[in-house]
C-alpha cells in the first residue's frame, strides 16, 4: 500500500527545463506513470514523447493525472503549486529550492482545507520502491520492504535508505519533506501516514537543526505511534547563528539545537543513532524482527 504514491499514481511534470526532463525520464525508467507535462505556451506539442499542456487543468482533463511534480524556478514555483491545487490534484511535490518564504507562507495558507497534499518545497520527493518515483531520488538504491523513511534532507535520506538496503531491509516509502522553514507536509503528517499504513512496520526519521519540527514529532510519537521509530539529527556540531545550507537549518536565539531534539526524541522512546553511519543499524537493533 505504501504512502503518498504507488503504481496507480498518474504524474504530470510542471516545469520542463533540463532538470524536469532529466528526472521525468528517470521516473519513467522506474515505471512511474508520467502522463504529461505542463509548459505554458507549448500546449499541443510533445516533449520527450510526453504530451504537453498549457495549464494543469487541461493536463488533468486529458490524462486523468492525480499528482504533479514541480520543477518551476523559484519566482513562479508558489504559483505552480497553487495552480496544481486548483486543478484538484491529490499530491503536489515541489522540488524547487529557493522559493521566497513569504510566497510559501501565503501558498500554505491558501492550501488549508484543500484536498491537495503538498510535499516540499526544496525536497527530493517520494519513492515507493518498485512502484513509483516522484522527484529526484536515486530510486535504484531503494528496495520494497517494511520501513518508512521520512527526512528533512535529501541526500541524507539516500544515505539512510542505502544503509537499510545494504542490511537487506526494504522500505515502504521514502519521503523527503524538505529543508525550508515553511513546508507542506511535516514530520507529524508523514508519521501519521506511516502509522496508518499496514505495510509499514517501523519508521526512520531524519531531522536536522533549526525550528522545532523534531520536538513536535517526538510528542506525536509518544502519544500516537505504536510502531518503533529510529532517528538521526544532523548538525550536532553546527555553530549557532549560521544557516547551514537549508533555509530552515539554523540555530537561532538558543533554539533549534540538535541536543534538545535528540533529548525530546529519546524521551519519546525513539532510538537515536549516534552517527550518520549507524542510522539503519540503530533501527535494526531497536526493532529486531526487521532483519530477515
Amino acid at each position, binding site marked *: 500500500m505504501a504512502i503518498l504514491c504507488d503504481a496507480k499514481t498518474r504524474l504530470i511534470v510542471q516545469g520542463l527545463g533540463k532538470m524536469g526532463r532529466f528526472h521525468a525520464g528517470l521516473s519513467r525508467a522506474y515505471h512511474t506513470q508520467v502522463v504529461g507535462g505542463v509548459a505554458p505556451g507549448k500546449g499541443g506539442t510533445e516533449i520527450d514523447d510526453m504530451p504537453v499542456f498549457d495549464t494543469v487543468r487541461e493536463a488533468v482533463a486529458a490524462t486523468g493525472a492525480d499528482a504533479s511534480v514541480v520543477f518551476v524556478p*523559484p519566482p513562479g514555483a508558489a504559483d505552480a503549486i497553487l495552480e496544481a491545487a486548483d486543478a484538484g490534484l491529490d499530491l503536489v511535490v515541489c522540488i524547487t529550492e529557493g522559493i521566497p518564504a513569504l*510566497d510559501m507562507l501565503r501558498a500554505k495558507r491558501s492550501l488549508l482545507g484543500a484536498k491537495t497534499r503538498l510535499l516540499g518545497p526544496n525536497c*527530493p520527493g517520494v519513492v515507493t520502491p518498485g512502484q513509483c518515483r516522484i522527484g529526484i531520488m*536515486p530510486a535504484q538504491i531503494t528496495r520494497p520492504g517494511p520501513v518508512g523513511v521520512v527526512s528533512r534532507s535529501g*541526500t541524507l535520506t539516500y*544515505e539512510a535508505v542505502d544503509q537499510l538496503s545494504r542490511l537487506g531491509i526494504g522500505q515502504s516509502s521514502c519521503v523527503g519533506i524538505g529543508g525550508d522553514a515553511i513546508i507542506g507536509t511535516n514530520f507529524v503528517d508523514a508519521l501519521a501516514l506511516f502509522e496508518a499504513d499496514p505495510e509499514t512496520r517501523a519508521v526512520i526519521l531524519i531531522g536536522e537543526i533549526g*525550528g522545532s519540527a523534531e520536538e*513536535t514529532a517526538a510528542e506525536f510519537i509518544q502519544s500516537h505511534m505504536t510502531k518503533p521509530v529510529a532517528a538521526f539529527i544532523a548538525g550536532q556540531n553546527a555553530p549557532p547563528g549560521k544557516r547551514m545550507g537549508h533555509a530552515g537549518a539554523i540555530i537561532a*536565539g538558543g533554539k533549534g539545537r540538535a541536543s534538545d531534539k535528540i533529548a525530546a526524541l529519546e524521551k519519546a522512546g525513539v532510538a537515536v543513532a549516534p552517527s*550518520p553511519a549507524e542510522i539503519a543499524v540503530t533501527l535494526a537493533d531497536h526493532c529486531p524482527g526487521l532483519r530477515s
Partner: protein
Amino acid sequence: MNVHEYQAKELLRAYGVPVPPGRLATTPAEAETAARGLDAKVVVVKAQVHAGGRGKAGGIKVAKSAGEAKRLASEILGMTLHTHQTGADGKLVRKVWVEAGCEIERELYLGLVLDRASESLAIIASTEGGMEIEEVAARTPEKIVTVRIDPAVGLMPYHVRRVAFALGLGADAVAKLDVFLGGLYRLFVEKDGALAEINPLVVTKAGDLLALDCKLNFDDNALFRHPDIRDLRDADEEDPREREANELDLAYVGLDGNIGCLVNGAGLAMATLDMLQVAGGAPANFLDVGGGTDQDRVAAAFKLILADPQVRAILVNIFGGIVRCDLVAEGVIAAAREIGVQIPIVVRLQGTNAAEGRALLESSGLRLIPADTFREAAEKAVAAAGPNPKTQAKTQAKTTSAMNPKSNGRG
C-alpha cells in the same frame, strides 16, 4: 541578508515609521558637519557594523557639541569592535551614523518575524526594551507578548491594540502605534523581510514613538525581486570566504578544523561534520555544492576549500540524486589538475551514475583515495589529515566544562 542600522532606518522612514533624524559620516569632519546640521542638544555617534552589542563595546557615544561629535567619530571610525556577535576577529568600523538624541521616557522591544511553528507572521513585543529578547525569553517569558498575523489578511487593528495595551501604552498611543506597526508591516511584506527588530522602541518624554535602533534582515531567496534591497549589501561586513561562496551560489560556513568538506545536500553536509567528529577529526568547513552541480561549480568549490591554509585533507562526500556523480567526478578531476592539489583527497561517490563517476576517478591518474561507506570515508579523511591542534584544545575545554557543575551544557 543583513543591512546596516542607517539603511534600515532610511527604509523605515520611507514607510512612515518614525525614526530620529540622522546622517551618515565616513570621516570625523563629516561627522562634525552632520552633527551641526542636526540642530540637536545632544547627538549620538553610532558605529555602523553588522553586529549587536555595539554600545557595550564602545561603538556608541553621546556628544554635546559638533566638535565633540568629531572627536568621538575620530575614535570610533577605524576601530575594531569586539562584541558577542562579531566573532574573535571583531569588525572594523568604516562608517558612523550621527543621530539627534531624544529624551527617553520608556524603552520597549518590538519585533516582526516569520514564525515557523505557527506558519504565520508574528509580532513579538516586550516592555523590556534594550535587552536581548532571548535573554528576556529565558528569564521573564511573561513579559513577552506574541501576536500572530494571518499573512492572507494582514495586520488588523486588534493586533495593534493588543500590542499597545500589552506594552502599557494607553488608549491615546494606539493611533501612534498603528502608524508605526503599519509601516513596519508593509515594509516587511513588500520587501520580503525575514526579521525586523526595533530595540529599543522608545516612548519619548513628549509621548512619541521612535525607532531608536533597528535591525532588518531580508529573505535571500527574494532578493531577485528587490534590486533596491540587494544594492544595500555591504560586502565588507561578510566573511570573505562566505562571500565568495555566496557569489558562486554555494553554501559555505567556515569552521576551525583541518579537513575540508565538499558535500552535496545540506543534511548530508551537516552529517559529514558530525561523522568527522565521531571519527575523531575536525572539519574545516561546511560546504553544500547543491543541486544541478556542473564541473565549473565543483571546481570552484574545490578552490574555495583549498584557499583555507588549515586544510590538510579533503573529503568529497557525494550521494547523487539530483547531482550526477560523473559530473562531480569531472569537477574533482578538473580542479585537482588545474590547481595541482598537494594534499590527500578522499572521495566517496554514491547514487546516480556513481559507477561512471568512480570509473572516471580511477582512470584520471590522480592520487585519490576512494571510499565506499560513510564511516570508511570519514576515517580515511581523519587519518589523511593527521591530528588537529585546535581539536585537542577544544576536547580539553569540553572535559573541563563537563566537570564544572555551573556549565549550562551548551556545546
